[in-house]
Structures are given as C-alpha cells and as structure tokens.
C-alpha cells in the first residue's frame, strides 16, 4: 500500500484531497451511525422487568428461537414448558457426528460413520461478526468460538466449461479481474474519456488508486511481472539462497475471465454477511444448541408432535401426540404460547388465530437445500493444495466445497462436499442418500482428483426430506413480505410466533434469536399490563 504521496503527486492535489476529506466529515459520521443501525438490532441481554404473577407460557419447538424464549421467560418468573418434535433440542442448529442416525422422509436411514471429532453441520455453519445476539449467547453460555474462513485466496473457483475444466485459484481470479478492470479504467481516464464527469485533480488520484488497487505497473498496465505477482501469486514462489528468485505467472486474459463466469463467484465474498470476521463454534454448530439445552432440559418434552393449537379468552391449549407412538392425544395448557414451529409445518396444523395471521402462515414456501459431508482418510486439500479452511465455488451442481476450518495437519477430515440451492437442490433431494454421495464424489472429483483414492464415508442431508422442517428456511419475497410479514409477527390473542421465518434475517440463527427476543418482549409487556 502507498503510504507516502507517489512521485508526481503535487501539493495542490494533496490540498484538494484534504478539502474533500473535511467536507465529507458529516457524511462519514452519518455512515458510521447507519452502520451501527444495521449491525443487527440486538440491544444487549434482555431485561423483562415486572412480575408476571405466576403466568405460564407454552413454547412450541426447542430450536434456538424456542429455547431463547424459554430461558429468558423462565428467568423473568414465568412457568414455562416446551414441546419438541425431535428427540433432541437444537432444531436446525445441528451437528452430525459419528454414531448419529438420521432417518429422512421416505424412510432412508443413514448412520454417520465419521471418526471421533469430525462432524457435518447440515444447517447453519457460520456466524458473521455482526450477529450480535447469537454471539452474546455464545459468550454468556461459554460456547467456544474459532474463526470461520469465508475467503481463502488459495481455494478454487471452478467453471466446468472453461480453462479445460481446471480450477483456478481465487487469488488469481480476483487479482486478474481487479487488475484488468483497473487497467481499463486507467486507460479510459488517460484518454480523457472521463473529463466530463471527473475533475482533472480527481483523475490523477484515480489513476494512482487504480495502480495501487489493481497492482498495475508504472505504465498503468496489468501484466505478467513481479508487480502483479504480489497480488496474484507466483509461478515460482520466492525462496532463500541460490536460485531463489521468484518467477511471476501469466494472468488470465480478461475475455477468458468474463466468458468463463468465474467473476460471479467473487460475489460470495462481498456481501455484508460474508465479510471477515466470521466464526464457528469449536466442535460443531450443535454446541450452541447443546449449551442452550442444558438450561431448559428439565422443561422440554421430546417426541411431541403438535396436532392442534386452540385458544380461548383465558388460555391456550395444545394437542400433541408421541411422535414415536402416534395415536393417544395429550394436551398441554398455558396462559400464553410462543410458537416457533416452521411455517411449512404450522400451515398444516389447525390453529386458532385470525385470518390475517392464517394467511401469513400459509404464504411462505420453504427453500430447497442440500448439504453433504464426506470423510477422507487424508487431508489432501492441505497436503497437496495448501488449502487451509475456506470454500471453493463451482458451477457444477454441488456448487460448494467447504474445507475444515480447524484441525489443520490432522490425519483425517470431513469436507462439505456439496451445499446447493436452486434446481440442483431439488434434483439432489429427489435422489437416494447413496446417489447424492456418489454424485458429490463424481462432481467434486473433477476439482480434487484425490477424492477417489481417499474417500471413506459420507452423509447427505436434503432439507425438504428433513422431518422436522420440510425445507431449509422460509423463502420470503419482497411481495410476500409486504403483504404478510407484519401480520405474521403480531400477537394474536394469546399466541405469538417466533423463528427465522419471523425475521429479516432468513435462515440465519441471528434471525431466530432476535425474533424470539422481540416476541417475548412484546408478550411480557402485554402480560404486565393485564
């Protein structure tokens, strides 16, 4: 990075630069406060003040939303019970480990054969630094976190119909794309094409910026050489002693970058939710659900399949049956109900709420998504490719290969061998688990040929076949949000809904927790007022 004014940078330019900076002071302040306003609306640990006078709450669902509500309401003095469909707490906060069994809809049973310490997170797998609520609960509940590398410059971007099918290093794609765009802009500037829109002074700064940002040489050109190599890497890395001089490699031509579509993958690192720093719990995302569960284990009834939600002027009554032994209907009553059942399921359960909330519950389809974990007997991605953590992206149906974010130089490892949305997610869901794994090996083997020799076992989770969600997450559109979101979030009599589906952070755990905190804050206000 340039720290002193480069040669040719005149004092007048510096003064104008300072002038610009002074004039933008107010804007900077505005942007900073805007930034804070957007970094989730978590206001610190919830304070539910006032005595609920022994009021009772029935929480439906022991995922993160339900357990957040249960923990905090009990803390505030409520009598709380929780009904959960699964035989474990956590919901989509879930890690599959060796010995775990999973039966999907349709009956296919998989038993995870991973070695001790290895896992797959079928659901959420990363936490952005600004998801303040879930991070605060991790801190308060002693869940150890470690870095989750979203952008590993040495991982791959792979376009199956380009570069002879050879995957490209992210650092080369990024540097070559950025460098050649910078060169184009520099040339355009030098030809005077920007004269009408950019002042002469700013053009000089822009040229310097493009040289710096794009790794251009002294002639504002991006090409093979030691300047670009500092960004894109070398054909032969610098070393020590005799013959240690580095050799730069040749950039990928702009036209090849554009036509291959590899630039699309760069978007996976740009969004707010994917910017450094991201984190994951040590030992699997399920560690969060386990930490929550220890605080409410005594009030959860497992294997409880809710079949009816009724309410009157004075109480909520929920009918349920044993998921393992259906038939005998049992009931549970309380003064209030926090329902976190996914809308995919709630839309099929008779529930006494008004027509607006009914319409909202029925308005949200659930997205298709598939994740596949593959155990290999050798960490070839580290040993052969120097890929330590991070993610490779491909236009093959598997879409994603995620590398273990810790345990480097260990013996074995589990790759996230596929993580897909869209048409491919439906296609993979329609396959048997064995076929999904076979396909993941076939496609992934085109990026890592070591797959065939090193594979040991795998497990595949297709979210539309998951019995407790029937889909990955609520798939809102701008139109359905405008028409239904507010109706979904209202307190209807004695019932309030919570979960990622009742948030503006769909599919994120932060959305589930924030939605629960907001729901119980409003519920508590109503209880105290009555």
């Amino acid at each position, binding site marked *: 990075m340039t720290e002193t004014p480069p040669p040719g940078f005149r004092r007048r330019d510096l003064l104008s630069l300072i002038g610009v900076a002074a004039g933008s002071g107010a804007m900077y302040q505005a942007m900073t406060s805007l930034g804070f306003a957007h970094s989730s609306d978590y206001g610190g640990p919830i304070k539910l003040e006032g005595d609920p006078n022994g009021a009772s709450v029935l929480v439906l669902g022991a995922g993160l939303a339900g357990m957040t509500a249960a923990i905090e309401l009990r803390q505030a003095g409520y009598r709380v019970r929780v009904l959960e469909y699964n035989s474990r707490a956590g919901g989509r906060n879930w890690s599959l480990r060796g010995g775990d069994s999973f039966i999907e809809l349709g009956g296919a049973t998989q038993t995870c054969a991973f070695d001790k310490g290895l896992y797959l997170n079928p659901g959420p797998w990363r936490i952005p630094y600004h998801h303040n609520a879930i991070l605060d609960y991790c801190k308060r509940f002693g869940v150890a976190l470690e870095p989750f590398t979203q952008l590993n410059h040495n991982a791959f971007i792979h376009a199956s119909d380009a570069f002879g099918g050879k995957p490209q290093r992210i650092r080369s794609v990024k540097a070559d794309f950025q460098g050649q765009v910078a060169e184009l802009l520099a040339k355009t500037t030098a030809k005077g094409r920007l004269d009408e829109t950019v002042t002469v002074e700013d053009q000089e700064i822009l040229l310097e910026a493009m040289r710096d940002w794009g790794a251009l040489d002294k002639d504002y050109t991006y090409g093979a050489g030691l300047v670009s190599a500092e960004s894109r890497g070398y054909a032969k890395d610098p070393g020590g002693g005799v013959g240690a001089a580095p050799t730069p490699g040749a950039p990928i031509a702009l036209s090849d970058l554009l036509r291959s579509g590899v630039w699309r993958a760069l978007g996976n690192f740009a969004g707010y939710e994917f910017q450094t720093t991201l984190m994951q719990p040590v030992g699997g995302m399920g560690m969060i659900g386990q930490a929550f569960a220890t605080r409410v284990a005594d009030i959860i009834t497992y294997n409880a399949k809710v079949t009816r939600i009724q309410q009157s002027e004075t109480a909520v009554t929920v009918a349920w049956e044993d998921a393992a032994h259906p038939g005998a209907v049992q009931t549970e009553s309380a003064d209030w109900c926090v329902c976190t059942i996914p809308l995919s399921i709630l839309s099929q359960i008779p529930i006494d709420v008004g027509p607006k909330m009914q319409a909202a519950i*029925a308005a949200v389809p659930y997205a298709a998504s598939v994740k596949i974990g593959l155990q290999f007997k050798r960490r070839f991605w580290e040993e052969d490719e120097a890929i330590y953590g991070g993610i490779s992206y491909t236009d093959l149906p598997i879409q994603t290969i995620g590398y273990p974010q810790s345990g480097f130089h260990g013996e074995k490892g589990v790759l996230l061998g596929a993580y897909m949305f869209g048409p491919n997610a439906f296609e993979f869901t*329609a396959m048997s688990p064995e076929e999904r794994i076979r396909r993941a090996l076939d496609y992934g083997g085109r990026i890592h040929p070591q797959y065939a020799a090193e594979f040991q076992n795998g497990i595949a989770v297709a979210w539309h076949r998951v019995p407790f969600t029937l889909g990955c997450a609520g798939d809102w559109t701008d139109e359905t949000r405008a028409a239904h979101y507010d109706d979904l979030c209202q307190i209807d009599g004695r019932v309030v809904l919570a979960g990622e589906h009742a948030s503006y952070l769909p599919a994120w755990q932060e959305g589930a927790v924030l939605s629960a905190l907001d729901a119980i804050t409003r519920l508590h206000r109503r209880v105290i007022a009555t």
Partner: protein
Amino acid sequence: MKRVVALAALAAALANSARADSATSQDLSKGYAKFSEQGGQALYANVCQACHMADGKGAAGAGRYPSLVADPKLEVSGYAVALVVNGQGAMPPVGRMMDDAQVAAVVNYVRTHFGNRFTDAVTKDDVKAARP
C-alpha cells in the same frame, strides 16, 4: 439500446454453447434459474419426487407431503397447474423454474400416473394463462 441487444445476443450465444457442452458433461440443471429436464417423467423424477416420493405417496413427519395417488383433486387440471406455478403453503412455486411446456408435461404426467386417469391434457397455453 443497441448495446443491450448485443449483450442479449451474446448471452444467448453463451447459454447455447453452455447447453451444448452440458449435454455431454452433466445431466443435471445448470445455473440457479431453470430446470433443464424435459418431459413429464424426467421432471417428476428430479423435482416433484423430492417431496412426493418416487411412488407419489408423499411422506409424513412433523408435517406431511400429500399423496398424489388416485387424487380426486387432480381432476380439475387448472388446480394442478396453479399449484405448480404458484406453489401453496410450504410448496415452492417450482413452475417458475420451468417453461410453459415443462409445466404442462409434468402436470399431464401426474394426472395420468399414480392411479390418476385424467386424459384431458393441459397445453402450454393453459400454463401461460395461469402464470401470475
């Protein structure tokens, strides 16, 4: 405007070349927007089967996927088309990732299989009219 047309032509050319290649290198859909399968049987086996299962009987967990077997609701062809195009409840509007001919093909397939014998086939135009 001319540039937009040129880019559209380029995109179409790229899409065509990608399709030609993909026919040999893979049999699943390419990209995030559209299903590539053609014909009712292939569409059912790669899309609908994800939830309604290979035998059309659906499945039940905390909620359920309805059975399509001998389903009297399918008698009204417009109902089936509307479901595929618009979705319903948790069911995604998968028809938005299909063209009109694909939607017609898969609706006709379901209405003539799994114990359903509704022979009044729907057409591309029926689907087009049902799109929002």
